[in-house]
């Protein structure tokens, strides 16, 4: 296993562990919700329960966002630079969190991730060979980039859901990007054929006019 692959492997492993812990907390919360009859209690108690659960979950969500921030540039950078980039990103997030608060720090990581993912998407669209993807194929790369951009947008959307205007824009960006990404990635061959056929039709019409 080369260093790039082992880096990928550990990132996937870390993400899986964090997701597993989040799932375990979710299951515990479901049983706690049922056993303590939270649904029947006054709204203030329910709000208190939600706050407590948010506090329990927060470190793992932060870990997930930081992992996302490290995962995105792996498409762009070689592993040596990826290590340096990750260290700088985490350091900056910590500094921002200390100066302002954790939310701003996480928003910084998310925005950097979104910008980088847009760069990855543009490079994938341009057919760049320098991107590091597990799978080859133009449409798979474009679809995967769109899908992951959608995921980042979704987390940003959850982050800003209290701002209705921004929330709606982010929500539709998320939905379009994720859906289009999944369709293009999962049905890459059909997409390729469809684009080719459409291009041929346009070319034929162009030749007839001439």
């Amino acid at each position, binding site marked *: 296993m080369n260093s790039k692959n082992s880096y990928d492997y550990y990132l*996937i492993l870390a993400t899986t562990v964090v*997701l597993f812990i989040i799932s375990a907390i979710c299951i515990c919360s*479901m049983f706690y919700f049922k056993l303590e009859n939270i649904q029947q209690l006054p709204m203030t108690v329910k709000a208190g329960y939600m706050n407590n659960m948010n506090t329990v979950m927060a470190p793992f969500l932060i870990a997930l966002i930081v992992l996302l921030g490290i995962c995105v540039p792996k498409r762009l950078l070689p592993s040596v630079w990826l290590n340096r980039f990750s260290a700088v990103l985490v350091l900056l997030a910590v500094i921002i969190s200390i100066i302002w608060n954790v939310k701003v720090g996480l928003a910084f990581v998310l925005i950097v991730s979104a910008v980088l993912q847009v760069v990855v998407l543009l490079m994938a669209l341009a057919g760049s060979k320098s991107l590091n993807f597990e799978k080859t194929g133009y449409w798979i790369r474009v679809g995967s980039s769109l899908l992951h951009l959608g995921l980042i947008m979704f987390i940003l959307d959850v982050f800003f859901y209290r701002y209705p205007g921004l929330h709606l824009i982010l*929500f539709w960006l998320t939905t379009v990007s994720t*859906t289009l990404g*999944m369709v293009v990635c999962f049905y890459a061959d059909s997409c390729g054929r469809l684009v080719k056929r459409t291009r041929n039709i346009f070319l034929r019409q162009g030749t007839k006019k001439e």
Partner: protein
Amino acid sequence: MMINELVDISLFSRGGQFFMYGLLVVGVLLGISGVINLLRPRPVMERMTVRTLVVVNVVFIAGFLWICRLHYQIYCYLPLEMSEFLVGWFNQHIQGSGMPLLESSAPVRYTVPLWIENEKYYFWFMCYSMMSLAAHSRITRHRLRALLHIMLSGQVLLLFFWFDPFSQPLSGFFSEVQPWFAGSQTPMERLRLFMQLYPRMIYYYNASYMWIHPPMLFLSYACITITFVTSIFMLFVRDMTIENTGYDFAKLGFVLLTLGMLLGYPWALQAWGENWWWDPKICSSIMMWSIYSTYLHTRLYAARSGMWYFTSVMGILCFVSMVFTLLSSLYFPGEHSLQ
């Protein structure tokens, strides 16, 4: 006037029983042929099995059209009519609340979705039935086909004995609206009743999201069930065609599940505010989505040693988490609760 006089529920039930008994007969036949095929080294009664599967699909679709007829009757014959005075009074009080204003000349009508109460199981199992027919035509291994048929047969039995949508159709909905059509209230009582029924109509029965969010999820559940069957088979047979079939359905299911869950999100914010964070059903759905995406990622490495079994276990786990998500609506209280 009683609801029975406006919408012929007894005729609907009698007609529905015809479809349910029809389904039971063909479903049991399919199950028997499935068990025989599973135990035999060579395919048995192949042509008969295909025909039975087609008949199951036809009966399912006919029953679904019968359900559509009931819903159309509800739309036509169960409007919530009020006098012009009450409409004016009501409009004054809901102005600025975000709810649409009423018109006395055009009473509000129910557009009840086709997948509420027991009908949702009917819709889900019908989708599975169609997908198993599609999967049947793609695979050649008779034992895998047999597993698909046994699963369908089990679903038909569940529908017949526990989730029959025809025996007491839309019992929750009808008991809600029954007092309105009993018609023995004073104008003020009628207005009070309308104030209970109208928000429920706007935010639940007539909500546009109800026509998108649940059917997408049920379609994805049907896909997950096919993937589950292929994953079980993968534990015993190492065949890329089977893995590909399971993966094709998993892809479709994942697209539908993700889109369905996403489209429920702004509606939940609108209808429940922030109340649904930490709702048990949402927690279990997110877990299911995580497991599903893990399955799709591990599937990339299915050809590597050891990963074959891990991928199939993940496919099975997707189904288990889907069942857990479904049961969570029955057991855990919350915004999605069916308790």
